[in-house]
C-alpha cells in the first residue's frame, strides 16, 4: 500500500520505495538437527517512500523492528518478502557486482560509535576503506587527500589520520563513522540511532552536522531513533512503528501535532519535556503493560493489548495504513495514514506554551 496519500510537502521524486517488506527470523531448537518451532516477525509488511533530499524519521520502542528495517535497507539482512526499489529498480535480491554498485549509493551510520569502528585500524584506514573496496571512486594516489578532506568536512582535524579510534571521544568517533558513510558520495544514508549513545551536549553537535551535510550534498536520510524529540527536529516526515508495522506515517506536523493513532498519542504524551511548566497543561497517557513478544504478536491490531480504545473488531481485523474513514472528507493535517479502526484526532495542547515565543 503506497503511502502516497500523505503528499503534504512534496520534496522530489521517490528515490527509495519500500513495498510490503517483511523479515521473519525462524526460531529453532537443537544443535545438529534443527527444528523450526516458530518465527519472530521482526518486520511485517512495511511500505514507505523516501524522496530525494528528504529525511524520513522512524520512531518506535525497542523490539519494534526499526533496526531490522535499517539493516534490510542496506542489505545487511535479506528480506523474507517484499521489495526495495532504488530509483524505480528492484534491488531486493541483487548480489555480487550489481549489489556492490548499489551499496555505493546507500550507506549507513551506526548507533554505537564504540563498536562500529575497528579498534585496530587507524582513522585514515577506516575512512579510506570505502576507496579500497570501490577503487573506481578515487584513484590510489588521491585517496589520502580525500580522506583528509572527509575528516575536515565532518569537523575533525585532518592531521588525526594516523590515530586510532580509542583516542577519540564518543562524539568524535561518530564523526569518523559519518565520514566513512560519506566517502562513496552516497545519495541515501540510513542512520540507525546515530546520537542515542552520545552525551546531550555532543548530540546537538552531531545532529547539526548531519543537517549541514544534508544541505551540502543533497542527501536523503532515513533517521531511525527512539528519541521522539530528536526525530522531530531532523525529520520532514515521520513513521511510527509498533511491533514490526507502521502505526502512523505523515509529515512531522501531522504526526506530532495532529496524531490520530492511539499509540502515537500515548508515545508523545510520555516524552519527558525539560520544562516543568510546559508539561503541567499536558495530559499524560500512561500505557498499561509491555510490548508483546514479536514471536507471538496479537491478532488483528498489534497495539490492541495495550490500547484503551480496543474493541472486538481490533482483534479480528488488521487495520490498514490508510487515511482513516472518518477523515476522508476532512481537511488539514489530520488527514494522513493511520492504521487504526477508531482513529481520532487528539488536539495536542502541548505546543501552546511554546507558541508564545
Amino acid at each position, binding site marked *: 500500500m503506497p503511502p502516497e496519500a500523505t503528499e503534504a510537502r512534496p520534496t522530489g521524486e521517490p528515490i527509495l520505495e519500500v513495498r510490503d517488506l517483511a523479515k521473519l527470523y525462524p526460531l529453532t531448537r537443537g544443535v545438529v538437527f534443527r527444528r523450526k518451532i516458530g518465527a519472530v516477525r521482526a518486520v511485517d509488511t512495511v511500505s514507505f517512500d523516501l524522496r530525494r533530499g528528504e529525511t524520513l524519521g522512524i520512531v518506535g520502542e525497542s523490539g519494534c523492528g526499526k533496526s531490522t528495517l535499517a539493516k534490510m535497507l542496506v542489505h545487511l539482512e535479506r528480506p523474507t518478502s517484499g521489495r526495495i526499489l532504488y530509483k524505480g529498480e528492484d534491488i531486493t535480491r541483487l548480489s555480487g557486482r550489481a549489489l556492490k554498485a548499489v551499496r555505493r549509493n546507500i550507506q549507513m551510520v551506526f548507533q554505537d560509535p564504540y563498536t562500529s569502528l575497528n579498534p585496530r585500524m587507524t582513522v585514515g584506514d577506516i575512512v579510506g576503506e570505502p576507496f579500497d573496496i570501490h577503487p573506481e571512486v578515487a584513484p590510489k594516489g588521491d585517496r*589520502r587527500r580525500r580522506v583528509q578532506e572527509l575528516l*575536515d568536512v565532518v569537523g575533525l582535524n585532518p592531521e588525526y589520520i594516523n590515530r586510532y579510534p580509542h583516542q577519540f571521544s564518543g562524539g568524535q568517533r561518530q564523526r569518523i563513522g559519518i565520514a566513512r558513510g560519506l566517502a562513496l558520495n552516497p545519495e541515501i544514508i540510513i542512520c540507525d540511532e546515530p546520537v542515542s549513545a552520545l552525551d546531550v551536549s555532543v548530540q546537538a553537535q552531531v545532529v547539526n552536522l548531519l543537517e549541514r551535510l544534508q544541505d551540502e550534498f543533497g542527501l536523503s536520510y532515513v533517521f531511525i531513533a527512539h528519541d521522539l524529540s530528536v526525530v522531530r527536529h531532523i525529520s520532514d516526515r515521520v513513521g511510527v512503528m509498533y511491533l514490526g508495522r507502521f502505526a502512523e506515517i505523515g509529515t512531522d506536523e501531522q504526526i506530532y501535532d495532529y496524531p490520530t493513532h492511539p499509540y502515537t498519542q500515548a508515545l508523545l504524551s510520555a516524552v519527558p519535556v525539560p520544562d516543568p511548566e510546559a508539561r503541567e497543561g499536558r495530559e499524560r497517557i500512561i500505557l498499561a503493560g509491555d510490548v508483546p513478544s514479536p514471536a507471538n504478536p496479537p491478532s488483528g491490531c498489534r497495539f490492541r493489548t495495550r490500547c484503551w480504545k480496543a474493541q472486538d473488531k481490533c482483534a479480528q481485523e488488521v487495520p490498514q495504513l490508510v487515511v482513516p474513514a472518518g477523515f476522508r472528507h476532512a481537511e488539514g493535517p489530520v488527514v494522513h495514514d493511520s492504521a487504526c479502526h477508531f482513529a481520532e484526532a487528539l488536539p495536542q495542547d502541548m505546543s501552546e506554551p511554546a507558541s508564545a515565543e
Partner: protein
Amino acid sequence: MPDDLQPLQQGPLQRGPGNTIAPTGAGGAMDLAVSEAETLERPPGTGTIPGGPPGGPGAKPRSLWSDAWRELRRNPVFIASGLLIVFLVLIAIWPGLIASGDPLSCNLAKSQEGSQPGHPFGYDTQGCDVYTRTVYGARASVTVGVCATLGAALLGSLLGGLAGFFGRWGDALLSRTADIFFGIPVVLGGLVFLSVITSTTVWPVVGFIVLLGWPQISRIARGSVITAKQNDYVQAARALGASNTRLLLRHVAPNAVAPVIVVATIALGTYISLEATLSYLGVGLRPPTVSWGIDISNAAPQIRNAPHMLLWPAGALSLTVLAFIMLGDAVRDALDPKLR
C-alpha cells in the same frame, strides 16, 4: 547529486582561518565546519592523549602492522626474547658453533660424574657430555616445539576461524570432529599411532602432536572469531560492499588473534614436554636422535644422586618456553593500539 560533491573532490585546498584545511567552494556552511573543527582540534586535555603521535599531513600513512612493528622494536621484552630465539635457532641449525664434541661419543667410566674443566655440565649415566647433548638436543626439541605449534596454530585457527565466520553446517561438522580428537587419550594414542611408524626423524612426532593439538586452538579461534564478527565495524564494512576475504583478513582476524597467540605460546612448552613423554615411552624420538625430552626422561630417575643431569636440559627447555611466551605476549600487546 554527485555534482554536488564536485567541490569536495576537485576543490583546491586552502588554509582556512582556523588553520584547518578547507576545500573551497563548499559554501557558507564551511564556516560552521571551521568553528567546529577549531573547537575539536584543541579540546582541553586531548593534548595529553597517550601516544597520540603528531602525524602532520606530510607524515607517512600508518597501519596496524607498521605501528605494531615500531612498537615491538622499542619493547625490551621483545628484544630479549627475540635474541634468545635467534640464538636457539642458530644452535639448532649449527650446534657445532658452540659445542665441539660429539653427543654420541660417551665414556661409561665417567658415568654421572659432575662438572669438570672442559665439561662444565658434567656427564650423564651413559658417560656422555651433558653440555654437548644439551646443545645438540636443541635441534630436535626446538624443531618439534616450533613446528608442532605452527602446525597446530595454523590448522586450528584456519579451521576454527572459517567455522566461526561462516557458521552453519561446516561449523557443526568441525566442532564435532574436534570433539572426537579431544577424546583421544594422548599416551594411548601415541602408543598406537607412533609404534607402527619406524621413521627415526622428528616428523611423525610433530604430525602426531599437530593432530592432537589443533582442536584446542580451533576452539579458541572459533570463539574469538564469533565474538569479533558480531561487532558493528564488521557490519559497517559489509555495508560498504567488502568481500568475505576482506572482512576476515582486515576486520575479524586482527581482532581475534590475541587469544590464539596466548594459547599457542603456552602450548609450545606443553608440546616439547609431550615429546619428552612420548620419548620416555619409547615411541617418540629414538636414539641416535638427541633431544631434551629424551635426556630429561633418562635423568628423572637419577634426580637424587645426579641432579645436574636433569637441571641442564630442563633449564634449557624452560628458557625456550619462556622466550616464546614472552614473544607471544609482546606481539599480542603490540597488536592492541589501546595499550600504546
